[in-house]
């Protein structure tokens, strides 16, 4: 029987592992189908849209396999939870209570002792025989009393263990239910992610249609900058005036444009001295609800200007992470696109792409 149960358990565990392998295989197949889709999306066209459709189909297969795995795991977890809820040992019944036996032994022992005492000084030979019989009865009651007491000790031990079982079972049940809820939540989340992937590939397919346009267009409502006191621009190696990079820049509170982490504010200061740029970035980003990450980001950057429109410099954050920042002059004079990436640090913002306006 024990061996059969063990085999059943091993079979269930093998089944769970097999289902996990199934969905992993489906996931790997999806990810390997078209790893360059996003990179190639800039080219646009119907071919990219078709590739997005194919990826959507693979994503759906992967989600279905994962859902099947989670449903199987939920069934397994439900069994564990149900056993803890219903099938565990119950309270010890009263049949093992020795109270009546103990009372009987105590009453009879007292009665026998009184009788022996009554006849203690009687010289009659017959009475002496009776007293001896009573003494043997008393000895039997003493031995019986000890045996009853021993059994009661074991019954008490069983009661104690039963109480401990009830405590452990209640607490384990609480954890088991949390695990079960977690699995159900994961299953629901898989469905939500599947919908999100389908929507993503749909949008990607739509996005690659039509003519290409860069992101740094003048946002509606931002007036074009005009110089009230124009002065000759200083000589520079850059193809656009230095003023398009240097100065104090900030994140607009209306009509803001960003990709990746959403800023609450960002202030950027850029200085230039003899063709070398130094600058600082200080910002705070909105984090997802429940996130314990650090929303604040501060870093310095420096480097020589290059004869290119986009300037890329090395950066170093206040936490010691290295990275790069790219300054991209916007289509309007008072707009600067700032795109940075840093080494990954737990709980830290590591990349953002924002369009800033000049202060």
């Amino acid at each position: 029987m024990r061996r059969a149960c063990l085999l059943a358990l091993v079979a269930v565990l093998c089944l769970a592992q097999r289902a996990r392998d199934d969905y992993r295989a489906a996931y790997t197949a999806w990810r390997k189908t078209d790893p360059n889709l996003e990179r190639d999306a800039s080219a646009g066209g119907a071919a990219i849209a078709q590739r997005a459709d194919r990826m959507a189909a693979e994503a759906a297969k992967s989600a279905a396999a994962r859902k099947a795995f989670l449903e199987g795991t939920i069934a397994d977890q439900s069994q564990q939870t149900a056993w803890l809820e219903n099938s565990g040992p119950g309270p010890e019944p009263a049949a093992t209570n020795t109270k009546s036996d103990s009372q009987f032994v105590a009453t009879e022992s007292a009665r026998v002792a009184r009788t022996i005492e009554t006849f203690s000084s009687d010289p009659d030979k017959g009475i002496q025989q009776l007293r001896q019989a009573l003494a043997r009865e008393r000895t039997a009651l003493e031995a019986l009393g000890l045996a009853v007491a021993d059994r009661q000790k074991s019954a008490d031990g069983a009661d104690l263990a039963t109480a401990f079982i009830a405590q452990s079972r209640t607490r384990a049940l609480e954890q088991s239910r949390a695990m079960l809820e977690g699995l159900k939540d994961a299953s629901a989340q898989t469905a939500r992610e599947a919908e999100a992937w389908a929507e993503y590939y749909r949008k990607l397919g739509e996005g690659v249609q039509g003519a290409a346009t860069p992101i740094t267009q003048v946002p509606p409502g931002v007036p074009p900058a005009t110089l009230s006191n124009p002065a000759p621009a200083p000589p520079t190696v850059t193809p656009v005036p230095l003023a398009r990079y240097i100065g104090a820049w900030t994140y607009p509170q209306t009509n803001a444009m960003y990709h990746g982490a959403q800023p609450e504010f960002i202030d950027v200061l850029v200085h230039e001295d003899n063709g070398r740029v130094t600058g600082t970035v200080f910002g705070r980003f909105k984090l997802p609800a429940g996130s314990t990450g650090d929303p604040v980001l501060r870093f310095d950057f420096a480097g020589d200007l290059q004869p290119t429109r986009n300037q890329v410099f090395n950066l170093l954050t206040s936490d010691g992470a290295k990275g790069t920042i790219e300054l991209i002059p916007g289509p309007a004079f008072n707009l600067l696109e700032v795109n940075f990436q840093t080494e990954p640090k737990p709980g830290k913002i590591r990349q953002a792409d924002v369009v800033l306006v000049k202060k």
Partner: protein
Amino acid sequence: MIRFFSLSVFLAIAQSAHAQDKPVDALAALRQAADKAASDWDALAKGLELRIARLLPCDPTSRAAVEEVSRASDARLAALAAYLKAAVAKAKDDTESAKRVLAAQASLAGGWNTERTEADQQGASIEAQVADLKESMRKRASLAGAEQGLTEIARMVKERAGKATDLAARKDVVNALLGDLVVACQDRQTAIEKESAQLDVETARWSGYYAARLARAVTECAIVNHPSGAPPRKKLP
């Protein structure tokens, strides 16, 4: 093939669960029988001295009354022994079940570590996709909607990793609690086994006591018939 296998396992477990219900019912019936037998003996034992006090020492009813209580005692001890034997079997089942649940739960709880690792890997993969898509967006702003969607997916996967981390942290707690449960079931089983063995000893003691009680009744009768304690005289022809 997998479905057939899964169905077989499910049926085996369901059959085992159904089979487990029967011993519980049998145990309850044995307990009721033991309770009734104990109650019968208790009533007879408590009334014995009163019954005997009204009889002459050599009245055969007196000896029969002691023997009746002795038989009732044997019956209730036999009923209790049968109940305890079944209780030991049930306690063994409980211990084995608790061990199986511990093993299965440890495997299931360990799955949360795998979930977290997978979510982290998926998150990193999606971040790379986001980076690639951003590069594409430089030339094609119409991808902004897709980028927002992908960023939202990244957030969802990160959230999933966080939940898996929380649940993985419960693994040690649930394993410890189920370990305690197994130990307690084992302790309970040992206690009931001991109780059952001690009942055997106690049964012998009860037999000894009732033998002594009956011997007293015989002695009382003998004293009445031969007050001096002298051996009975032979009847004259």
